[in-house]
């Protein structure tokens, strides 16, 4: 089909301009007037389609492999695998609950700490800080994301953990010990340390996405709120954050995704003990950590299969979390007016 808006010039060997002198000069010419261009276009489209399908195929293949190789463990333990608290390679009895618990709790903890911090940083850089500081500040935040996680792990071991052990944990135990979340011996190493180091690692992602979202909030929204006599903070809350919440949620999801799968730094500080304890001071273990730690030493077939099943579960948890979060974003962006909490 010829495109009506962009008629193709006849290729008769004559310069196009001679035949079309009556036409206004501004008429847009097609970028690729030759038919060989169209073939290339189709080829390109086909190549892109192949890539897209390949990605989907890769996903299916991963699931297929994980499912296939975890069969042994699946047949041995069934659903109880995810409810079992016992992880015993000697007796070949495996339950993954402590790892699932460790992954979810450490990630949740990370979010609780990181989200206010990241949003605060983003709000500060876009709305409050003087212009000259804006560039360096965002640059440094972004740079944090580029630090290898093993370095974070080292830092945590040498700086964070002693700090927690000596000051933070005794303080928390004294003030909030009654909640049961902060009791027991302050080792430093444990769930709390893992949550904090994860938080530090996901702050750059969340804040850089949030910053981008805040920057596209139109100026007239800010002015609209200000003109009603709002203070600066009210303007940020109503005119900026409210309008950007879907995007902020997107950044939080990405952060969560990173936290769930993060392995190295967490492994170095979480304590690596498959236990479920109420206290955040207690050591724990995550799904990613147990795979990384024990994969190379897994001797028995069932042992190996159990680790792969944990991998499968981690994969599924990540997918479900992401799907849920996207659903939330979707419901927010559909444009239903939520009740104002002005």
């Amino acid at each position, binding site marked *: 089909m010829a495109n009506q808006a962009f008629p193709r010039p006849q290729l008769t060997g004559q310069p196009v301009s001679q035949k079309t002198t009556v036409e206004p000069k501004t008429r847009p010419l097609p970028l690729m007037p030759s038919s060989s261009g169209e073939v290339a276009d189709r080829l390109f489209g086909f190549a892109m389609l192949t890539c897209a399908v390949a990605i989907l195929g890769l996903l299916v293949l991963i699931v297929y492999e994980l499912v296939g190789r975890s069969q042994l463990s699946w047949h041995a333990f069934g659903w109880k695998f995810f409810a079992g608290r016992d992880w015993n390679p000697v007796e070949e009895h495996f339950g993954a609950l402590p790892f699932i618990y460790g992954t979810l709790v450490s990630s949740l903890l990370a979010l609780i700490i990181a989200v206010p911090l990241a949003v605060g940083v983003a709000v500060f850089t876009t709305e409050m800080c003087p212009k000259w500081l804006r560039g360096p500040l965002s640059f440094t935040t972004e740079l944090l994301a580029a630090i290898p996680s093993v370095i974070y792990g080292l830092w945590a071991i040498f700086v964070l953990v002693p700090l927690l052990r000596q000051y933070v944990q005794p303080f928390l135990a004294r003030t909030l010990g009654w909640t049961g979340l902060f009791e027991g011996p302050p080792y430093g190493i444990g769930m709390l340390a893992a949550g904090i180091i994860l938080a530090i690692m996901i702050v750059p992602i969340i804040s850089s996405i949030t910053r981008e979202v805040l920057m596209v909030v139109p100026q007239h929204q800010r*002015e609209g709120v200000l003109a*009603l006599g709002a203070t600066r903070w009210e303007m940020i809350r109503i005119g900026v954050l409210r309008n950007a919440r879907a995007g902020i949620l997107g950044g939080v999801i990405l952060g969560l995704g990173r936290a769930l799968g993060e392995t190295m730094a967490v492994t170095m500080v979480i304590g690596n003990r498959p236990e479920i304890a109420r206290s955040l001071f207690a050591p724990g273990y995550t799904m990613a950590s147990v795979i990384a730690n024990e994969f190379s030493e897994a001797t028995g077939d069932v042992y190996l299969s159990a680790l792969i099943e944990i991998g499968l579960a981690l994969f599924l948890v990540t997918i479900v979390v992401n799907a849920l979060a996207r659903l939330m974003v979707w419901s927010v962006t559909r444009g239903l007016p939520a009740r104002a909490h002005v």
Partner: protein
Amino acid sequence: MGVTIHVENLNAWYGKVQALHDINLKFEPNHATALIGPSGCGKSTFIRCLNRMHETIPEARVKGRVRIGELDAYNGTSATQLRRRVGMVFQKPNPFPSMSIYDNVASGLKLNGVRNRKQLDEVVERSLNASALWDEVKDQLHKQSGAGLSGGQQQRLCIARALAVEPEVLLMDEPCSALDPISTGKIEELIFQLKEQYTIVIVTHNMQQAARVAEFTGFFLLGKVIEFDKTEKIFTNPSNKRTEDYITGRFG
């Protein structure tokens, strides 16, 4: 009730560029005053100095005196205090898209700490009535987002939002420039009614509009007030040659 606005020796800058030079004007209560002039002459800058929106732009600066009734805008009055009494309607309708129609109108009151449901209901209905939007939206107050209305409806919603906090002055910066003739007509009619209670300052590029709604008109050129007089006088018998040239379309 509207209040008198006195502007004395007002100068405004964007960085080093001076956008307003020694403006002296007086706006009468319960009247509408139109500001006209070619693009870039400083009308928006001026109107934004009246509610201190100008200073929200980085590096923007103001010198001079503005009195809104008994308030001295740049001396002893906070910007928030001032803006609660000087409402503003922008050129581009800017309802809050994440709020329902109701919440859009109520937003100013909620900022002021009003929580009483009955009082909010009353004010929302009154403001939407005042902006001639009530009949069109009354069935979807809570269902419809502020951004889900037509352009003209959005602008009337913004007017309702400004009126809800019961200001004394209403500033309008080309409120109809994004609207079709019918919506424009509605808003002009509205201005005509509103000026019984408010001091209205309206920037417009449309001379007929200025002639229709405003008792007084000021002509701006290159950041200065060239002429300020009764609208009739400006449009029929201006005393300045440049005003005449502009009115008769002899220059842009």
